[in-house]
């Protein structure tokens, strides 16, 4: 049995500890917002947080989450109240949308570490998240917008 918390809820699972966390989240826990893109930490679509750190869940064995706190896109805020989600809405960021869960989860860590990121900070932090539709300019604008919201005392 492997136990950890997901979006604040405790789970105990009977699962092969070498199974990538991604597939446990998607299949056992039925949280399908976290996406499979490459399976080799190259595209960022599977990004989740383990104890607040951005992790590529497609290569992280579920054992790595043991005893820890996992946050998925569903836990960022289900009602779209997170400044990043609000900024993403205002900038109309997604196209096909498949990569956006990972983009948001990476951006969340960036904003926590750098509340006022420059374009260069954003490019550096987001470079591991690929968008095949090419929404990068809007992602960058949305991160700046979210940073402004937080600075002005938006919900965080």
């Amino acid at each position: 049995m492997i136990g950890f918390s997901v979006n604040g809820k405790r789970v105990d699972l009977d699962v092969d500890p070498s199974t990538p966390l991604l597939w446990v989240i998607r299949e056992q826990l039925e949280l399908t917002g976290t996406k499979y893109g490459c399976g080799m930490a190259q595209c960022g679509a599977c990004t989740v947080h383990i104890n607040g750190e951005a992790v590529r869940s497609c290569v992280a064995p579920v054992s790595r989450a043991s005893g820890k706190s996992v946050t998925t896109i569903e836990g960022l805020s289900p009602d779209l109240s997170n400044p990043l989600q609000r900024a993403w809405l205002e900038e109309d960021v997604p196209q096909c949308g498949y990569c956006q869960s990972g983009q948001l989860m990476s951006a969340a860590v960036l904003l926590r570490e750098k509340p006022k990121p420059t374009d260069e900070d954003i490019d550096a932090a987001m470079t591991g998240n690929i968008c095949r539709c090419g929404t990068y300019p809007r992602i960058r604008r949305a991160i700046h917008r979210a940073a402004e919201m937080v600075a002005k005392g938006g919900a965080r």
Partner: protein
Amino acid sequence: MIGRKMGKGIERRDFLKVSVAASGGLLIGFQFPGINTLAAAKSATGPKASADTFEPNAFVRIGSDERVTVIVNHSEMGQGVYTSLPMLLAEELDADWTKVGFAPAPVDPKYNHPAFGLQMTGGSSSVWSGLEQFRQAGAAARSMLVAAAAQQWNIDAATCRTESGAVFHGSDRKLTYGQLVDAAAKLTPPAHVQLKDPKTFKLIGKPIKRLDTPEKLNGGAVFGIDVKLPGMLTAVIARPPIFGAKMRAFDDSRARSMPGVKKIVAVPAGVAVIADSFWQAKTARDALHVEWDEGSMQNFNTSEMMLDFRERAKTTGTSVRKEGDAATALAGAARKIEAVYEVPYLSHLMMEPLNCVVDLRADSCEVWTGSQFQTIDRANAAKVAGLPNEKVQLHTTFLGGGFGRRANPQSDFVVEAVHVAKAAGAPVKVIWTREDDMHGGWYRPAFLHAIEGGIDASGNAVSWRSRSVGQSIMAGTPFVAMMKGKDYDPASVEGIDDLAYASPISRLSRTSRRSMCRCSGCVLSDTHTLRSRWNVSWMNSPHWRKRIPTSSGVHSFTSSLDILACSIWPRRKRDGANLCRRGWGGGSRCISPLKVTRRMSPRSRSQMVEFACIAWYAPSIAGST
């Protein structure tokens, strides 16, 4: 550019022709959009009345709760059709936009593409082909709602007006669409409707936020890979390492006993491992030992193929277009350039790898997948399932990118899933790993494209000679009929046979377009169309705006000629630079992926302007349709 400035340089008819050719040549039952669309828009069973909904036609459903659901017959793969097409309908309906939603259409002939005669999405064609279809469907619904209100008020319908989801009469009478649902459902749809004067549009042409954004920000959007059915198993397939290879034998002694594995079966696509979960299926698949008969492609390599292309390019191919005497015109040109573009095979590489869910029963089959070819996918699934088409339901999910890969004439990713479902004895989801997807073929074909061009002393293009070599997309597919009467594949000469520019320079020069258009450049184009030993397909994406490899060369070379002209004529220089800076071309002339292998006079200048052009155009890439 074409979409943005339509009607200025390119006539609308030409635009349609170009667009249809751009689809990969699905010129089946081509007609201008709008014709017969009202008939097509009528629900097969007439208006439906249920307790609380009004379905005046196949494209809209209005509830007593005021919700307006637009049924969209095109697939949402990032290009925005779940917003743009509802906008068209809501505009004519005078709906309250905050109450408008969308639903994917089931597979039915009434949802066929008005121009292509199939239910499908591709070729940057959804909005132009749906323009009148969706507007008419909205106008028809509006007219019935107005008639219902007029009946209740016992007045002439012509004295009513509509706004934001309600019918008004005078200043004191108002009935919302939700209140009129029952009454409107009893009326007969109108035979003709009056469409709005575009000057009065409230939605069309305005920036509107996408309807599908919220669910793409909280994990709610369901892509094919997210579908889950009760009792569903997951399969991963061991696929041939070489195109055309066939499975000879396999040893599953290790894989069979691995946890979660239910069945391991040979299917036409390879060897399918069916398990409780993806990771179990994938690890067991990797533990299989499969012997392949590698077939005729085992010694094939692309470097040798490109050498062969270069040899072929020395000889004249099948004539595609001939206007005037291009050789003489080139000889007399003031400036000449020549370029050879070699573009590689390209995988579509959607972010969401291919997948398909199938629930096969004795007398029914349900399929969930991100499809761009619903009519074809359903028919192919039905064939494998041994069921008539109407017993097969195909549910279109969100597509994590399409780019043409999910518009597959053989429905490869659907057909194999039905085969797996036959063996699984339970609902099953087949998932391609990223490697499976990347190795899986149906690439955009590699091409060699050599172009020579010349301009006269005033900067007018006077000669354009083009020769291309590459593999046919249509040959060996049901679309081979498109090649009838031609010795080449129309999909392989996009931008060549329908060169959209009477003279390239005329497109860039605002100040003298009129006179330029009278300048008739000489054009000579030929091509070597090679029959495939393996499958290739069309590709579309924001980066290669046109999906057929030769069009990239055309656009790049056009730019080169334009800039060459700018360099010798100051006024052009200014115009050209301004137009480039303003994003003229809308990114559709993006040329960055090209490899320029050879360039002749004037060597240094043309190379310089070529790369300058990349820098100017690339930032304005935008999705469309």
